[in-house]
């Protein structure tokens, strides 16, 4: 357990040692907030409805881009620099490495979500939104991002090239996101609806917490982390 947190702290120290971290987080928050208030069909000031539905609609798309950008370096960078060798020859299990690094992305993500609080706070100041819906939306959006980062962690474990990690994550997320609604009827539609991310976060934004949605996101996270850990251990299968 201590090793997991030691690794998480190390990642945070490395990441926040450079200004890029602050820039990435700031750009995400500013972009999401600006789009929410001013841009497109859901633009807050055009609609005159005090809810934050639009915030997460757009942010979940923006995150498709930002999550891989943050997760791509996790393991790929260590493979590329050779530091992974030093890490795995210390008394730490492969799954601990994966979890430690994943927790770090969750901390970064939590900071991003905290920054997004500007929006609900503003909306609460000028209107009377349903606080319950805001809370479930936040929960849904947290689970959504947590799944993005888990998939990104897995992709990063397979390559030493960060760009490849980014592209693979982006494509995987894009497919999972966009297949929702690709087929409108028939048995295939039901299957696609079950797999697609889209079908599972809509409920949260309506204020509904469905256990199936939670199970869906947790399954994605668990499966991705398992795959990442196996990818690390695979060096031992090659005899």
């Amino acid at each position: 357990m201590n090793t997991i947190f030691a690794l998480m702290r190390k990642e945070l120290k490395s990441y926040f040692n450079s200004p890029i971290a602050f820039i990435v987080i700031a750009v995400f928050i500013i972009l999401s907030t600006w789009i929410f208030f001013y841009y497109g069909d859901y633009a807050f000031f055009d609609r005159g409805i005090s809810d934050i539905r639009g915030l997460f609609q757009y942010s979940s798309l923006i995150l498709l881009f930002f999550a891989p950008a943050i997760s791509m370096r996790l393991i790929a960078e260590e493979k590329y620099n050779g530091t992974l060798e030093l890490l795995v020859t210390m008394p730490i299990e492969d799954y601990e490495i994966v979890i430690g690094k994943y927790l770090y992305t969750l901390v970064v993500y939590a900071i991003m979500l905290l920054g997004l609080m500007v929006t609900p706070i503003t909306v609460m100041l000028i209107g009377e939104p349903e606080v319950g819906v805001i809370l479930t939306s936040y929960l849904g959006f947290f689970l959504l991002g947590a799944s993005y980062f888990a998939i990104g962690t897995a992709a990063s474990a397979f390559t030493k090239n960060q760009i490849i990690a980014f592209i693979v994550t982006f494509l995987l997320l894009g497919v999972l996101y966009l297949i929702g609604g690709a087929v409108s009827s028939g048995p295939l539609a039901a299957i696609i609806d079950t797999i697609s991310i889209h079908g599972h976060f809509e409920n949260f934004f309506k204020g509904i917490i469905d256990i199936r949605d939670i199970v869906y996101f947790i399954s994605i996270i668990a499966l991705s982390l398992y795959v990442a850990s196996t990818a690390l251990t695979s060096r031992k299968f090659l005899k």
Partner: protein
Amino acid sequence: MISVDRLEKSYDGFKAVDGISFEVESGQILGFLGPNGAGKTTTMKVLTCFMPPTSGTVTVDGLSVTEHSKEIRKKIGYFPEHAPIYADMNVVDYLQFVADVRGIEKAQQTAAIKHVIEITSLGDMVQKDIGELSKGFRQRVGLAQAMVHNPDILILDEPTTGLDPNQIVEIRSLIKEIGKEKTVIFSTHILQEVTATCDNVMIINKGKIVAKGSPDQLMANAEGKGILNIELNPAANGVLEKLSALEGVTGTREGKDKNTFVIESAKDTDVREAVFKCAVKNKWILMGMNYNQTSLEDVFRQLTE
């Protein structure tokens, strides 16, 4: 004690290590010598539990690398080739991280970190980012991280590559100092390094051990030869025949340069006097004479060519 028995390791059908066996007693310094690509690094990667052997058994204090990897990793401090270390952390944060992962109690961490910083003379660099350090200092950080948990065994892969001569001497004496208490295995392709620091040397080539023993033994076992180079001016006829006839001479040939000759003799047989007298008798003008015993370098070249 480290025991390696018929270790083999292949990558995609290429045998990087081909059935090597050796043992290292506790408290010994073993120099691992060989040309580039001989299999030194691969052997070390198996010893440090980075990857499993293709076949053969490797045990550390009776524990197998495949079954008790974690216990072994606790005992070992490892310095991989090129000292790969996180460039975007500062030295003390990094050592702190290693101490955390190594499971050193919080109360003892400060003392442990201070100790390794002291022995690697990193005192002035602790707040700097590792990426800003010069190669020599980065190597030291690599050594410091390998020792922070006070391991019984240190495995160092080319710890002196890329250092300037002063730093090399420093790192060597550091290894010697550490080797007083700990088992050290280090690889190098620099010969002076092993004569200067090791109790035992193992020469490896194309995945096989070609020689092992103490540096002295190795030189003794190699076809011990005395080699005498002479230069005459001008070269007379029949020089080689006359020299070959001398007592103690085992072989003669012409040297690389004009008018030079190489005279081989048995080890510890000095033929200089005889050669000189022969030259005087035949009225050759002797311009130069240079006597050598076979060096470890010759042994190395002989075995690995």
